[in-house]
């Protein structure tokens, strides 16, 4: 067993790195490092695929999400979300009981328009269906951007068999870089939630003879309810 304490290992490791790189202790970081950290920028090569007008980005998002086994339904207003959720669950013979995030963006929807049994909070073993909001979507790969927080417990993204995500079309951007810019704008630079999750399709595994199976340990089904709010905004 090593006898070195944590502090001396820290010094020893940093010392070896500096020696290998040929510089002394206490040397200040060069501008190329400090600027990169203080004002992060997109790197020069960003795929052109998603550099499109916004309506085309929404189309690309839908196409890419479907290509990784998510399902997508478009509704025209928030008030239509509960009916779409009820329809999806009925069509797939799934339980008419949902757990939503506490965030009013989903808990505050007119669920009483449906016969669904609705509760709010973290996910437990008994929760088969969750409904959560999203921070955004990335058209490039059809990825959902989900953040943890008081109104958006993380377990809802992973434990239930069926995960239903509400995404506003206006929150769809082309690339990951645009998401980071938005997050910094909202939270301040350097402020990350405990967890920021990119979801690209439902859970899957190829660990048994390389045959792809959906629903390994996370959700078996990922359904995206896309709210077309872009016209209202104008």
């Amino acid at each position: 067993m090593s006898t070195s304490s944590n502090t001396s290992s820290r010094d020893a490791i940093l010392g070896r790195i500096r020696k290998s790189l040929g510089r002394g202790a206490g040397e200040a970081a060069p501008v190329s490092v400090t600027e990169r950290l203080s004002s992060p920028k997109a790197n020069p090569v960003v795929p052109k695929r998603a550099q499109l007008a916004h309506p085309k980005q929404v189309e690309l998002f839908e196409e890419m999400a479907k290509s990784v086994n998510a399902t997508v339904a478009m509704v025209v207003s928030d008030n239509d979300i509960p009916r779409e959720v009820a329809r999806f669950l009925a069509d797939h013979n799934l339980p008419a009981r949902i757990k939503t995030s506490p965030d009013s963006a989903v808990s505050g929807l007119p669920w009483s328009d449906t016969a669904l049994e609705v509760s709010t909070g973290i996910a437990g073993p008994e929760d088969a269906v969750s409904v959560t909001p999203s921070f955004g979507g990335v058209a490039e790969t059809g990825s959902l951007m989900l953040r943890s927080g008081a109104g958006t417990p993380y377990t809802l993204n992973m434990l239930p068999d069926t995960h239903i995500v509400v995404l506003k079309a206006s929150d769809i951007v082309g690339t990951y870089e645009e998401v980071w810019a938005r997050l910094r704008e909202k939270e301040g630079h350097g402020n990350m939630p405990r967890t920021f999750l990119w979801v690209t399709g439902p859970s899957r595994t190829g660990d048994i003879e390389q045959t792809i199976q959906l629903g390994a340990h996370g959700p078996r089904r990922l359904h995206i309810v896309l709210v077309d709010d872009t016209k209202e905004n104008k």
Partner: protein
Amino acid sequence: MNVSTSPKFKENVHGALRDESLQRALGRLKSGFQEKRSAAAAKMPEFEALRDQARDIKNHTLENLDHYLLKFEENVKANGGHVHWCADAAEAREVVAKICRDKNAKSVLKGKSMISEEIGLNDFLEKQDLKVVETDLGEYIIQLRHEPPSHIIAPAIHVHKEQVADSFRETHTGRDPNRSLVEPRELLDEAREVMREHFFAADIGITGANFLIAETGTSVIVTNEGNGDLTQTLSRVHIAIASLEKVVPTLEDASSILRVLARSATGQEMSSYTTFSTGPKRDGDLDGPEEYHVILLDNGRSNMLGTEFQDMLRCIRCAACMNHCPVYGAVGGHAYGWVYPGPMGSVLSPSLIGVDEAGHLPNASTFCGKCEEVCPMRIPLPKMMRHWREREFEKHLSPSSFRYGIKTWAFFASKPKLYRAVTGIASKVLGKMSGGKGKIAKLPLAGGWTDMRDLPAPEGKTFKELWAEKQKQQGGSK
């Protein structure tokens, strides 16, 4: 550190080549990985430029590794987490065990982590009476079989579904013994059910990290199953284990490299889950771990900086090199004898456990160059294997017959007239030995070749003789 069988590489290879079950499993590499990678690369017009960019980001980071690690540490602490710098495997194991003891933990859940394999963490924790459960399906299967992984992203690639069913029947007692466990789906469903019970009972959740982000003090895992997320969210304590070269400067830099990672690994455009974790749960959060620790492991890496092996520290563990390697494809991962197989292992293992231990591995290459061709980080793997061969030769680790042979050849090769005379005689003798059949079945001192296959016999004249004749025929046209 994990015990290696790398010195017995040659014996391992013989066993692997005769293992029919393994050979059947390795046959799936082409459709499983190679074709998918090439399709994903073809769909991304900027793929080659993205590879250049990923290489440059990592090179910049390595040149400033001390600065970025210090910034990473500062930001983990600012978000309420802890960073543990560990010089070697023993220290890392002890730090993890101490966290477990301090929390009075009984059970430890694991997400997939190659660093955990590198430091031999599971055995160490089990000796301290902790119950350790691997949650990634592939890792779970090999844990039940008491085997090391044979591939860095598909640890159970050598196992057939019938063998998985056997392990499940043996371990998951109390279930209907007549249940069907034939289809992969049935096996997966049972594993999912069993794992759920473990998830809700866990004290400590350990994951690896694909990236550490200096700008924010974040660790990132790239997964498909969702087990890593449940491991780190449902446990009271999340420990991320990472080697120090995993750090990148910013969220944008991680995103840029992520664009080449999954495409090179599984041929996916992006993995199902890419999870950025920063600190423990925040005030007001309803779930998430109460504590967040990062184990920052050196274990030989700082000594690779500034040497001809620095480029290896760009590796993002996508496994493209082994998926495309004819040697890996013939012998599988276990033959390499330590944690990292394939071309990346042949370069990295001698750095981490020494050339005395792993010196055979850099010789396990046909130098076809496919590994470098597909490496998203453009690591010159064949060149570095050659560096190791040179060091092995310098350290007199190559067998004496090989050294004697090379020296004898060098003696003749530096004396052209003598060389021509001797090779001319030798080719005639060998031609006679074949008895006109064009091949030799047995040749003294060349058993390594002729035991397995015939040696083609030289026929007619030597190359130099033919060349001279040809020149003559052309009548000195030059």
